[in-house]
């Protein structure tokens, strides 16, 4: 036999003589409800009674507007107001008048305590203040920003050609950056500049928008020749920039020192310190070509690079074959000298590699 019972019968069996009230957050003796009597919503009594209480008049309004940065002419915004009565209950079914900082007031009814307005901001960028009023109660102001639509910005360099002296600071500037509505790109927006030289070696220059344009300064020391520059902002590239850097000139090639490595019947050579016409050491990593011809007609050519201002290499030439005619080529500078064997330099530490 199936006997049907319902939970209410069960609860009746468990109920004591005391009356209890249940609400959204628990249960307690009815006699001790206190201000829980003011909570909107359903309260049930263990004696079978129930109360469905609604919120009172609005006493406080909270406004949320977002997203905090809205793209001009493209993205919508959302203004959301919560109306609360004096006990914190959410007020439903009343009209909220929403002012978005432009245009007329928008009336909307609260539902389950929330009034929401989806809006399309004006195409002009800037900061806006919004407010809402429910039952004559004004919310605190909420701010939101409308920013330039980066997807419609066509980034351009301020100049299409520029020439920079070697070992000086080159300044690359963009033209004013504006979107399709003429709004300037906000300060702090990042963009990138890529310079590509004749050998397809690239130099990446990060930049940041300030006052509607970007400006980057870079020291040109090892990028001689014609470079092509390109801007990239929010996925949009610019036209090319001709960026010409003068060649580096070696003013002083320092000493050329040859010494023997008798164990392997070879010689080692150190050239430098190499100083530029601006008085600086030639930067590390610059390529150097060394061509040597011995007195007996044997010769050797090696390509190395500069480290700490020196070029240090080993040559498979007999130490007895000297003197040697040495030709050092760095960039477009060539230095020729005749060199005899000598003791190795004092405190020699060879860190480089040929």
């Amino acid at each position, binding site marked *: *036999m*199936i*006997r*049907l*019972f*319902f*939970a*209410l019968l*069960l*609860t009746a*069996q*468990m*109920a*004591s003589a*005391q009356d*209890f009230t*249940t*609400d*959204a*957050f*628990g*249960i*307690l*003796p009815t006699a*001790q409800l206190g*201000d*829980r009597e003011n*909570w*909107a*919503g*359903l*309260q*049930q009594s*263990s004696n079978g009674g*129930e109360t*469905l209480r609604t919120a009172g008049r609005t006493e406080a309004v909270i406004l*949320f507007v*977002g*997203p*905090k940065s809205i793209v001009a002419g493209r993205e*919508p*915004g*959302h203004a*959301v107001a*919560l109306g*609360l009565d004096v006990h*914190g*209950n*959410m007020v439903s079914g009343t009209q909220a008048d929403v002012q978005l900082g432009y245009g007329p007031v928008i009336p909307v009814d609260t*539902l*389950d*305590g*929330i009034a*929401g307005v*989806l809006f399309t901001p004006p195409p002009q960028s800037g900061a806006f203040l919004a407010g809402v009023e429910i039952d004559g109660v004004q919310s605190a102001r909420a701010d939101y920003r409308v920013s330039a639509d980066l997807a419609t910005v066509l980034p351009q360099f301020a100049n299409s050609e520029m020439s920079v002296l070697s070992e000086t600071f080159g300044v690359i500037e963009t033209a004013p950056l504006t979107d399709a509505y003429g709004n300037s790109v906000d300060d702090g927006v990042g963009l990138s500049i890529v310079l590509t030289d004749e050998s397809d070696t690239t130099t990446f220059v990060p930049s940041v928008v300030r006052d509607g344009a970007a400006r980057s300064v870079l020291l040109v020391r090892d990028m001689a020749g014609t470079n092509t520059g390109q801007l990239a902002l929010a996925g949009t590239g610019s036209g090319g920039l001709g960026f010409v850097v003068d060649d580096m000139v070696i003013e002083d090639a320092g000493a050329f020192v040859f010494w023997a490595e008798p164990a392997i019947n070879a010689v080692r050579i150190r050239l430098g310190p190499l100083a530029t016409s601006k008085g600086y050491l030639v930067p590390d990593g610059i390529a150097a070509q060394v061509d040597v011809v011995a007195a007996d007609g044997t010769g050797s050519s090696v390509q190395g690079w500069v480290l700490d201002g020196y070029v240090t290499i080993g040559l498979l030439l007999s130490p007895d074959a000297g003197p040697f005619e040495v030709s050092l080529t760095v960039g477009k500078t060539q230095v020729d000298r005749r060199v005899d064997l000598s003791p190795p330099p004092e405190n020699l530490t060879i860190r480089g590699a040929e």
Partner: protein
Amino acid sequence: MTRNLMLIAVFAAMIGGVLWTASAALSRATERTVTYQYIADALDALSARPSHVTWQDQVSDLVRPVTPGDEVALGLAMTEAWSVLALAQSTGDAWLLRDSFSGVAQERAERSVLDAGKGGQMVVLSQKAQPQFYHLDGSVFQAEVSMRVARFVADGDDLAYFELVEDRAVTTLLNETNGWRIYAHERTGAAPIASAQPGWTGAPLAGLNYYPAATPWRDFWPAFDENIIAQDFARIADLGGTAVRVFLTAEYFADPDTQQAALDSLAMLLFLAEDVGLQVMPTLFDLKPTFSPTSWAQDYAALRAVLPVLAASPAVTMVDLKNEPDLDFEANGRPQILAWLMTMASLTRAEAPELALTIGWASSDAALELAEILDVVSYHDYADLSTATARLEAVQAATDRPVMVTEIGVTSYDMALGLPSSQAGQADDLDARLKALAGADGLFVWTLYDFPNVDATAVGGSPWVQRLQARFGLFAADGTAKPAAEVVRQAFEQLTAIHD
């Protein structure tokens, strides 16, 4: 002569005292020698809390769709919030609420914790949510929620009030710096959860409590071997048994990592029982580690997973909701245990109305607890043999439900000279108890086998108790029948013959 007998008695008492002291010392020493390599090993593992929110289709005009990722984040927040509130109400620690509630909801949750000192608690067991509003920037969310909620009031050791209802509510959450928090929660309706009480009729059950000999307690399900189960069930049937009582380890059936394997094994066990004509009394939530309100939602989730398997099998005669819950009264409080049992019983009724229910109380003293919501009254009888019949008759007189004794048993552990028991003594005592309780609607003997490896986490660290527990079987671990097996065979024959 008398003097010699006195000397022997004194000597025996001294030996007994020395052995008892040594046993206790060994027990303490055993406990002290538990070492851990890492502190974390000594602590209970913190499992990631699953969401207990089921999402329903969102309304079509949301300005921002609720993505599956949103459902996970919001579901966890809503689950955690009510779990934390239940914990706060049970402990009185309102500071726990700050990470889960804000605004007016925080004030009300804190107030409810203060009022819970008067004995009232609320536990949210499940939630179904339908999104109603979602701010475009993902900062404000609102849903209509249908939630199963248990509310109860403790009055000293008594449960003064209990209800299990389906609340309807509107829940509003704000996405704040530390994640989603409930900002407002308004209850808009409530309805009782209908449940059926099918009752139980049938021939008296002649049953065995069952674990495999080599894998008792927690090892049973992870090491489930259908070949061994089949052999053992055939042995029970051969003994004249008509039923088997098995234990579903709480954690193994609740853990998402093991649950599917557990359910598959359970279905196989029920099939094997049906195959040899055995009825099954599955005992749920065995070795459940806590009755904290924070665990109730997870218990309900486990119930929802297990009950369809049980309901689908004709072998299941009834469900034993919990083994010996009265032993948890002292640690957890009687009202909380009763509220938990009533909650799980009502939810079981709602999920599987055709399944009969019982609770395996540890003694006849507790047998009538919650009898009015059960189909069968059951208890365990290890108490004084001379009053066993009187206890059974007293329980039967106090209820119109069938009364079963689902655990009786005697150890055969023989330390020396037949003390404290022996195989012959086990058979004699078991015979006497079976006869004393022959009027029950079901008798289940503990247990089919001796257990060479007793689970210390189930029976405790005492070597003495472990040795006693290891020898309750009708069969030795190698399958050799002990004299008690024949006693039980005869008793089962008589028990089933009475009905025939």
